[in-house]
């Protein structure tokens, strides 16, 4: 255990009125590859009565910081003050004044909603006679009142998350710490939670500290703290961040050309900080006020100025410290010509054909008469709220689950009859980057390539190419379990691509990863699509949805909407929201659906 640091004279430096302040906070953990610095000399203070967002990708140190504040970890050095107390030395008095929700919500799944609330009220010493008046607003705010008797384990992800918040609020703490409350939750529930948090600050002047890896959530905070590789990369209001990059953002349309093909070239132009696909357009962020200039060879590009957003500022800052330029993908190396031809051997223009797909679990119909087609070379997104049936559909298409009824053709093979054969043309990458953690990078590649029938020199060359292409060579003999997240993702992708499949299945492939790594990842996916590989993505994550050519939104097992991101946004355009984001569109489609459902009942 680390020695408790002596009282710092620096404590005086932090502003006395700050509710929470940290000074020179450093925390390291031992790891198989030497010491890991989770937090590196962090200093900050939070404003009272506001929501501060702690923004950063997975592995940035967010959870470590939250746990330090809650007194669950001891810092190596540095000092924390919460309402004048030091959680490292006197955790009990700090813990009485904070509410804390850990990542998995901290609920007892076999206790009911009411019993969970009672437990935390008892533990926090909330007098019994005051409970009724305290519970009422909590339950109405979280809309959990009708579910008092339901077991927490039977709640949906969104409801669990709200109950977790309610439980951390039973003793009316002035400070609330929430560690990634919105991870794995669909956009509708995510929005509802933010409304609850807003209301909390407005009505009871609480101070909230919320960590998240979703950059778009930063816009909903009053203050932002960016954490990146254990260091603070910036702080301020969303407004101040946006101001930094005001006038730097453009939206480019490329009539006559797929934006997929143009985007990598644009990203390498001088002065360009960030490029990102948004449906059929490309968002470009420049390092300064000068607009990008294009050479004739790029074809026609129509440029429109767009309002700045937080992510632009985030990317600009990361670019300054990482200095990395995305490499131009030489997809020919990874996907030799013969595999492209292979994709076109049968006449059908479709890679996946689904007709009247049905899947029942007992009496519950998870997928209800679903029909759609995915074209060759198309990036197709499968979206839906939690429990809408998209995971079931995804698993059926990838051959992990048998359908109850319907017709299903994948890569020209009827999956129900020729499953093993169809699998040779499928690549699959699960959300958790399923790799053999005890095996090294090289051993993982060897195993998967053999599983797909590669052998001899062909196999050796393929593995070598993959190691070079995904920049995994330095990690060749490292166990995959201890790779950094971004490299684990690369390895998972390289294993999924080792047999040059014509169809790629991706399950939330870039949730939580560093935005830089996400862009690189999608560059590869885009390049694959341009050579004719079809990609099916399922995600909660609207930024990933923006990369898709077409989206299918599911609700209660059936098709709710289908079309390109722009078409879907177009559908929900209203006077109130003239330029809806994809998330706006998704939320409004689902709430319309719920309304009609309610009307029918």
């Amino acid at each position: 255990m680390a020695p408790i640091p002596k009282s710092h004279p620096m404590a005086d430096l932090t502003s006395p009125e700050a509710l929470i302040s940290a000074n020179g906070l450093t925390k390291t953990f031992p790891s198989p590859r030497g010491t890991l610095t989770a937090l590196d000399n962090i200093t900050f203070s939070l404003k009272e009565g506001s929501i501060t967002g702690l923004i950063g990708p997975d592995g940035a140190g967010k959870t470590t910081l939250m746990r330090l504040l809650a007194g669950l970890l001891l810092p190596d050095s540095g000092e924390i003050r919460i309402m004048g107390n030091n959680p490292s030395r006197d955790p009990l008095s700090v813990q009485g004044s904070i509410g804390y929700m850990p990542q998995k919500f901290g609920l007892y799944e076999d206790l009911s909603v009411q019993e969970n609330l009672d437990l935390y009220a008892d533990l926090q010493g909330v007098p019994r006679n005051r409970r009724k008046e305290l519970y009422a607003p909590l339950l109405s705010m979280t809309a959990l009142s009708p579910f008092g008797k339901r077991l927490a384990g039977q709640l949906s992800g969104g409801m669990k998350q709200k109950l977790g918040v309610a439980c951390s609020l039973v003793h009316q703490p002035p400070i609330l710490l929430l560690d990634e409350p919105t991870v794995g939750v669909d956009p509708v529930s995510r929005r509802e939670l933010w409304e609850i948090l807003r209301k909390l600050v407005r009505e009871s002047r609480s101070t909230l500290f919320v960590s998240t890896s979703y950059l778009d959530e930063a816009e909903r905070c009053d203050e932002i703290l960016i954490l990146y590789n254990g260091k603070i990369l910036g702080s301020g209001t969303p407004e101040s961040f946006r101001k930094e990059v005001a006038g730097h953002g453009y939206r480019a349309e490329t009539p006559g050309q797929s934006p997929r093909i143009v985007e990598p070239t644009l990203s390498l132009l001088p002065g360009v900080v960030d490029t990102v696909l948004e449906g059929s357009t490309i968002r470009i962020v420049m390092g300064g006020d000068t607009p990008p200039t294009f050479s004739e060879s790029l074809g026609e590009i129509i440029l429109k100025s767009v309002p700045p957003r937080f992510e632009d500022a985030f990317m600009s800052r990361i670019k300054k410290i990482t200095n990395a330029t995305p490499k131009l993908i030489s997809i020919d190396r990874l996907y030799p010509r013969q595999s492209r031809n292979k994709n076109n051997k049968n006449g059908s223009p479709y890679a996946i054909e689904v007709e009247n797909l049905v899947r029942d679990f007992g009496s519950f119909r998870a997928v209800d008469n679903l029909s759609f087609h995915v074209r060759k070379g198309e990036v197709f997104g499968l979206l839906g709220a939690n429990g809408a049936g998209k995971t079931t559909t995804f698993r059926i298409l990838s051959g992990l689950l048998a359908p109850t009824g319907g017709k299903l053709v994948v890569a020209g093979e009827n999956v129900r009859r020729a499953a093993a054969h169809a699998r040779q043309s499928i690549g699959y990458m699960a959300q958790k980057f399923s790799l053999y953690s005890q095996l090294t990078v090289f051993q993982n590649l060897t195993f998967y390539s053999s599983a797909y029938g590669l052998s001899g020199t062909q196999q050796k060359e393929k593995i070598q190419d993959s190691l070079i292409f995904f920049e995994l060579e330095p990690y060749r003999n490292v166990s995959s379990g201890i790779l950094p997240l971004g490299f684990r993702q690369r390895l998972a992708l390289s294993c999924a691509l080792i047999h040059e499949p014509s169809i790629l299945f991706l399950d939330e492939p870039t949730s939580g990863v560093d935005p830089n790594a996400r862009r690189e990842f999608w560059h590869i996916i885009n390049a694959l699509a341009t050579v004719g590989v079809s990609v099916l993505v399922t995600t909660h994550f609207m930024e990933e949805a923006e990369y898709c050519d077409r989206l299918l939104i599911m609700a209660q097992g059936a098709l709710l909407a289908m079309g390109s991101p722009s078409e879907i946004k177009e559908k929900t355009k209203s006077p109130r929201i003239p330029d809806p984001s994809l998330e706006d569109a998704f939320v409004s489609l689902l709430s319309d659906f719920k309304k009609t459902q309610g009307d029918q009942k």
Partner: protein
Amino acid sequence: MQRLLRILRLVQKEFLALLRDKKSRMVLIVPPTVQLLVFSYAATFDLNNISYAVWNEDTGRYSRQLLARFSGSPNFKLAGTITHEQEVAPLMNNRKVLLVIHIRSDFSRNLLSSTPAMVEVLLDGRQSNTAMILLGYVETIVSNYTTEIASERGIPPPIAPITLRAWYNPNLKSRWFIVPGIVGLLTLVVTLLVTALSVAREREEGTFDQLLVTPLTPFDIILGKVLPGFAIGMVEATGIIVLAVLIFHIPLRGSVGALYLGLFLFILSGLGVGLMISSLVSTQQQGLLGAFLFLVPSIILSGFATPIANMPTFIQNLTLLNPLRYFMVILREVFLQGAGVSILLPEYAALLAIGVSALLLAGYFFRRKLG
């Protein structure tokens, strides 16, 4: 050919996954070794250093001679001498002694006058088995002495003594009985742990889905799990057999071929059961509980420590499903009785039947779970 290569790689991967991790390497090597040593020394019915008390009211030389036989035996340890009946209860109750030898004051006199002389022994029956064995020891000492007295005084030995010959284990050593049993027990533990948890671990890590989307068939995947289990079971069992022969000097009288045929079939059935557990559970923890719930009854009902013949008929019928039961027979017959293949055919057949049906069931459950 292509397929063979794929399965080979699966096996290789399985080995790497098992052996690259320090913890699982330890689990495979350390506990079996420690258990073999500890169990083999601890699990014995032979008694040593039995504390006993003497209550001798006789002053003659015969009683002293008889008692000298006890104090001279390595099995017995004199813990006290008493003079009153009241002293017996505290010694026995508090387990200070397991045995009190009482010799009445007329013992030597009676012996000289050819009246039956009485030796009374009191035994602690709380551990009835110990008491029974102890009584046997006492009887041997007393009857040896009786015979000596008789011949000394020129009269024929009084009772027709029973002459005993114990086949296969002439000195009735417990270790000869227990150690071959431990070979079976540890082999079962290892094969079960290797298979029962491996699929669950892949499920938890998500690699099982990744395997299923490859062109490998469920049969290939099962084979990929079975073969490493086989190899590990065989290697561990061989190690234990070597230790049993070298350290514990258990005679290996039968044919090694017969032993390994049995081992092969036994591991097959163990793997079948392990995979069946594996196919039914979804987490490693459930797998562990499942393996445990199978292990405990199958050890108890195998005849490892207590004979199956002593069990009620219903339980005896239940043991027919227990692969360890058959392997125990094979082990002991090969080790001690020098059996060959032909005598053990029924056991081989039973193991084969259990193994094949367990593997078929495992395959069925796998397919149903995926369906």
